[in-house]
């Protein structure tokens, strides 16, 4: 009865439904018990090359989805068991990608990140790049996080998580964002605990003084909320060595490969990776890309990679000024690392299970049975491609990732070439 009324309502709401669809709906109503038994899955992705780093899967497998969750991962799941089947031959099937560095507290304030036009809307960029989860990097602080939640997080189809800024109003411009009196470890930790399903850590960044109080407060809030600290840029008076020394294992530094005057680059003038940086990595500090408009330079990233400092995650630092520059999308950053020499498997690890682990959300970034069905189906284009860094320089490559299909909680949120669709009939 419930089933009946639901489909009847659907018919009423969609007056232009095709006769074929109408017939199949009625057929469905008629044979409910049999249909349910035979087609236990909503969606089946067949013959794709599954890369699921958490579960050590790197081979051709089928994935079945039911009720928005991963129902089964197996070598051969019959198409008859699914209401819908997608042929992913020659494509890679990976967990929905996680971008742990974005600025998505979009609003209408001019010249602002917090509630402003410098931030961007997550759904505009995520799904077309295979991303199903973004983490906002402290655009909101403990004071304006509720507005961010109401205005963006609750309205987005993308899963939006957040590092909350130690500055009460987040990235709201100077002088407000540098007011030490507005940086309150207890308030930040309180908000982080209150919204523990969304807030995954505490961010420090954008402080131009030499006083370590803001950094220490962020660390204090991270300790109090038992979350990682996310260290962004624009801390010109803090030396890189001191920052890395103060950071705990599991804390995250971003813009790892920047070459700007306000922070010492990780690779020195002779092209050598600084030993204390490697030591910090060994201690357990996590290095995020944080590409952005100025945070990623081949002159840093390439030697760093060759000397052992691969990024732990590919945070894009998506915002108004990076979206059309060398950054473009997280898939573009991942393709850059393939051009630098990282294997596809390593790239996927750093875009899925690694970031999930770093934000202590190991329910995400994997294709375990029972996990939410956030899935990206990627194709690897072969050809002559070029990639640009923050300095406007080019690196050439011969592979490029493209998102064919993105599934969020079992729902198709992006379908580049109509992989999930039937051919139209005249």
């Amino acid at each position, binding site marked *: 009865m419930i089933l009946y009324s639901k489909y009847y309502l659907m018919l009423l709401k969609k007056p232009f439904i095709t006769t074929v669809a109408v017939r199949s709906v009625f057929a469905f109503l008629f044979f409910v018990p049999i249909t349910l038994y035979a087609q236990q899955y909503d969606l089946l992705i067949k013959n794709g090359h599954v890369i699921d780093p958490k579960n050590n899967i790197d081979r051709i497998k089928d994935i079945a989805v039911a009720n928005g969750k991963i129902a089964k991962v197996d070598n051969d799941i019959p198409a008859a068991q699914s209401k819908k089947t997608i042929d992913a031959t020659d494509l890679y099937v990976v967990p929905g990608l996680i971008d742990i560095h974005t600025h998505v507290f979009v609003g209408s304030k*001019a010249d602002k990140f917090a509630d402003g036009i410098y931030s961007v*809307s997550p759904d505009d960029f995520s799904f077309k790049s295979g991303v199903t989860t973004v983490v906002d990097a402290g655009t909101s602080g403990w004071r304006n996080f509720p507005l961010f939640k109401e205005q963006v997080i609750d309205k987005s189809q993308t899963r939006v998580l957040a590092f909350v800024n130690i500055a009460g109003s987040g990235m709201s411009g100077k002088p407000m964002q540098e007011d030490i009196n507005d940086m309150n470890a207890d308030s930040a930790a309180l908000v982080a605990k209150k919204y523990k399903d969304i807030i995954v850590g505490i961010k420090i960044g954008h402080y131009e003084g030499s006083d370590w109080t803001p950094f220490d407060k962020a660390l204090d809030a991270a300790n109090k909320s038992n979350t990682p600290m996310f260290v962004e840029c624009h801390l010109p008076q803090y030396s890189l060595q001191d920052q890395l020394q103060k950071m705990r294992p599991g804390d995250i530094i971003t813009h790892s490969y920047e070459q700007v005057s306000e922070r010492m680059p990780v690779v020195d003038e002779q092209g050598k990776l600084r030993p204390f940086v490697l030591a910090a990595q060994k201690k357990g500090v996590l290095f995020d890309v944080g590409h952005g408009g100025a945070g990623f330079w081949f002159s840093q990233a390439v030697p760093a990679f060759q000397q052992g400092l691969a990024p732990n995650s590919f945070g894009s630092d998506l915002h*108004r000024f990076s979206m*059309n520059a060398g950054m473009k999308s997280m898939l573009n950053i991942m393709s850059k690392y393939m051009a630098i020499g990282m294997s596809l498997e390593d790239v996927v690890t750093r875009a899925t299970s690694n970031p999930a682990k770093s934000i202590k959300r190991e329910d995400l970034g994997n294709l375990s049975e029972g996990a939410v069905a956030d899935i990206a189906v990627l194709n690897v284009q072969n050809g002559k*491609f070029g990639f640009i860094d923050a300095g406007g*320089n080019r690196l*050439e490559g011969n592979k490029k990732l493209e998102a064919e299909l993105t599934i969020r909680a079992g729902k198709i949120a992006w379908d580049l070439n*109509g992989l999930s669709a039937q*051919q139209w009939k005249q």
Partner: protein
Amino acid sequence: MTLFAVNILQAQQIDILLKGGHVIDPKNKIDEQMDVAIANGKIFQVAKDISAKNAKQLIDVSGFYVTPGIIDMHVHVFNGTDVDAYIANALTSLPPDGFTFRAGVTTVVDAGSSGWRNFRQFKKQTIDKAQTRVLAFLNIVGNGMVGRLEEQDISDMNPQQTAYMIKKLFPDIIVGIKAAHYWGDFTQVDHAVEAGKLANVPVMVDFGEHQPPNSIEALFMQHLRPGDIFTHTFSYGPTVRETVVDDSGKVKPFMFAAQKRGIIFDVGHGGGAFSWRQAVPAMQQGFQPNVISTDLHAESMNGGMKDMSNVMSKFLNMGMSLQDVILRSTWNPANVIKRTDLGNLSVGSDADIAVFNLRKGDFGFLDVRKTKLKGTQKLEAELTIRAGKIVWDLNGIGAPSWEEELQKNK
């Protein structure tokens, strides 16, 4: 005299020289390999074999198509935070820059998201802050697209105020008037046309929510003027909008007559307004849209529409020539909105340029009913230039090699 002219040409510095591309510039009837030189944000020269000697930056675009910056004549970009509103100052509208340049678009025309009451806010909030050139159709409803209920308010459809806003206050930005989402008779359209006459601008009509549907033949032949625009042309929703192709798959005869009369047919793809069952038969029977556009908004961006280059690619794969596709997304919309300074590569024009790669392969294209048309070619924006500045460079064709730069700096 000739010598003198040559000297001037050589003395002038070229900022960017696009070399070796296949130029398609419908206004100037160019459809062959040519070089394009840019200086001071303007088109400086279009010719064969322009010397690179005086060029500050040389970009090899051989193998690519070079076209005027694309004009997307139907978008919704009055982005804002009014969570109770629909399109005006709301989340359904999108900030333009994230969608335009990556698709080769340099100019968008907002299709009536704002009306005369809230246009100033739209301008301040979006238009003045965007890198994309944003023009607008002003909604005949004073509050624009706040919500469906508000859009039915005849007392808020004021031709005088609307025309005044256009003619006296913002003639450089507002290019026409929009009538949309109306449930009643022809009253809204007639008010819009009255305003259009007062301001001497075209009217764009979304005729999609009438129950039962109003006659589109009457709309084209009696209510609209030549130069007025019918959008969502290939929509299939016969209970609320009369279709242009009938149930037997035939284009209704008056469609050709209407187009001949001067009615402009716009694609306006959107999230619900483009069906293969309308578009394919129309194309097969020789009915082509005058203008290709997206109806970009939050509910179309991740669906079958995606972006302007995807919508253009759909027409390529339905059999429209590349030249016709470019015409319908550059020079045609420029003429429709009476902005003939745009959509061309004439010397002296703003250097708004798109460089496309025509990918070959197996592609698929979705319509709003989630059925697919298979295709073999797809346009991809390699490089987009807005007022002489590179605003999108997909593969770094305008960038130097990082290793060479590193050597130079050592």
